[in-house]
């Protein structure tokens, strides 16, 4: 298996061109294997969730909680779906030709990239000024939660914090998407200097061949990274025990019991009440 693809100049020099498409197949197979492994584990594992009786007691202790609690605002949901659409468009336009489905993909690819860039700029502004910015980030403070969540996954009723608004898995996924997304966008903008488009002046010699080579490789690595990330995301979104999260990304709210069952009300104090 090759990791990168080289070209040779007329002088016999090797020029780094892009990743090897073997990595795409590796990401695809890796994503599917993860899916199968996790699915098998979930079938037979003793993972532990909050007991119904405990949820009953928490519900009784919080009579003021509304029946439905807003988890994602309309604006946040719109961003999510626009970003999802653009990422799927990017991955499909990038890799369908690799698997043999030929079409004029470059135009659609950079258009989807512009949409993704715009949506992420919007998200950064929205999350910074209109959302609880730090609720999605991961840091050393999350180690106790990680330990407790791990124990619960193995069926042990471990003490320790329950998640705030976003479970640790969500936050780690967000971090991975952030790294891959910013990598893809920054390299993608540099790569646009080599194609015809109306936004940037075309200048294929703007950087050296070596710099372009690393740019193309980084872009490719983030691309195949997204293949795995998207497989994992769609898998978790469709898992029966996670459907309530998926529905919340469509309709915006979760029920009071879901709020108490899956979250720590002390760490996520919901101030927004749905009237639905």
């Amino acid at each position, binding site marked *: 298996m090759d990791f990168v*693809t080289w*070209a*040779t*100049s*007329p*002088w*016999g020099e090797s*020029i780094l*061109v*892009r990743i090897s498409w073997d990595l795409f197949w590796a990401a695809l197979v890796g994503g599917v294997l993860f899916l199968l492994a996790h699915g098998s584990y979930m079938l037979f594992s003793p993972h532990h969730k909050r007991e119904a009786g405990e949820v009953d007691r928490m519900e009784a202790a919080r009579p003021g909680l509304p029946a439905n609690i807003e988890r994602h605002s309309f604006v946040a949901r719109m961003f999510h779906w626009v970003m999802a659409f653009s990422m799927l468009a990017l991955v499909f336009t990038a890799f369908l*030709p690799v698997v043999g489905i*030929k*079409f*004029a*993909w*470059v*135009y659609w690819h950079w258009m989807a990239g512009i949409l993704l860039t715009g949506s992420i700029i919007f998200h950064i502004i929205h999350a910074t000024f209109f959302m609880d910015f730090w609720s999605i980030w991961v840091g050393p403070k999350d180690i106790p939660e990680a330990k407790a969540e791990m124990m619960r996954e193995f069926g042990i009723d471990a003490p320790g914090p329950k998640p705030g608004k976003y479970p640790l898995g969500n936050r780690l996924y967000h971090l991975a998407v952030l790294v891959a997304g910013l990598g893809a966008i920054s390299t993608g903008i540099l790569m646009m200097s*080599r*194609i*015809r488009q109306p936004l940037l002046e*075309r*200048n*294929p*010699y703007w950087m050296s*061949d070596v710099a*372009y*080579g690393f740019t*193309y490789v980084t872009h490719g690595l983030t691309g195949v990274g997204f293949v795995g990330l998207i497989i994992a995301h769609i898998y978790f979104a469709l898992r029966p025990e996670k459907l309530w999260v998926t529905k919340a990304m469509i309709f915006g709210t979760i029920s009071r019991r879901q709020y108490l069952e899956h979250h720590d009300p002390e760490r996520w104090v919901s101030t927004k009440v749905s009237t639905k």
Partner: protein
Amino acid sequence: MPAAIRDVMPAFELFQPTSVADTLGLLERHGADAWVMAGGMDTFDWLKDRIRKPRVVVDLSGVSELRGIKDANGGIEIGAMTTLTEVANHALVKERYGLLAQAAGLVASPQIRNQGTMGGNVAQDARCWYYRAGWPCYRAGGNICYADTPTSVNREHAIFDADRCVAVNPSDTAPALIALDAQMVIKRGGEDLVVPAQEFFVGPGVDITRLTMLQPGDLLTAVRIPGTWASKQFYFEKVRDRQVWDFALVNVASAINASGNTISDVRMVVNGVAARPYRLEAVESFLKGKARNAQTADEAGEIAVQGASPLRHNAYKVPLVKALVKRAIRGADEWTS
């Protein structure tokens, strides 16, 4: 060091099959390692320059099944290994498809037409000299087009439909075949594919490393031309830097079905302006039902160049296309049948 033509051929394993079945067996066995050679007019440059280094060469010159021109269902079928001289001089082709006879007769030089084949002419690779010199451009699997930069020498390159690569299709017979609504017969994996000539050629947006849909293992066996456009009014003109042994800067092929002075149907294709022969569908739509006169020709010329995007050194192709389209319409005296 820069690529230079060497006098001797590089080492490779040479196969000279005598049947299509044997050829397909070889292509299946060697896959992408095999280089299919028809007349060799394109092949020898690649091999002697050491830009392409195939492990296996499959020489089709001994496959007699692939030679000849025959009547077929009201049209004709031309074997892929039929020489361009045979196509240009064949009585049936001249009588019914003068457009193709003229196009084939204007390819390169008599010597090359004696050796070059119908299949080789349509399947030949791009002549972009950066690509032919071994530069690792998009078409060669790289990530840059050396011909589309502020300092490039790009006089011969594309003015239409460039997508990263700006190389053009160099074939003279290709636009004539599309104008005649020909079909390409391809053997692929034990099946016969019959593909309209227009779809046989692909642009860089779809596949940046090939000019045609032929994949490793494929064999173009014949070109079929239906009777639909037989003996209509044809026009072919090739503009080149010198009058022999040269590729077209731009060529035009048109087939017109006219009732009196009114154009009832038309197919018009220019080549040398894009990576695939560029069918002027907007011009064709405009022309249907129009009188064949100077005004119609002028308007069609303007329509033909809409969307052209010339490079630094090839803006001359815009008025050239315009002029050729005008001549194809009004040049009644130039009809080849």
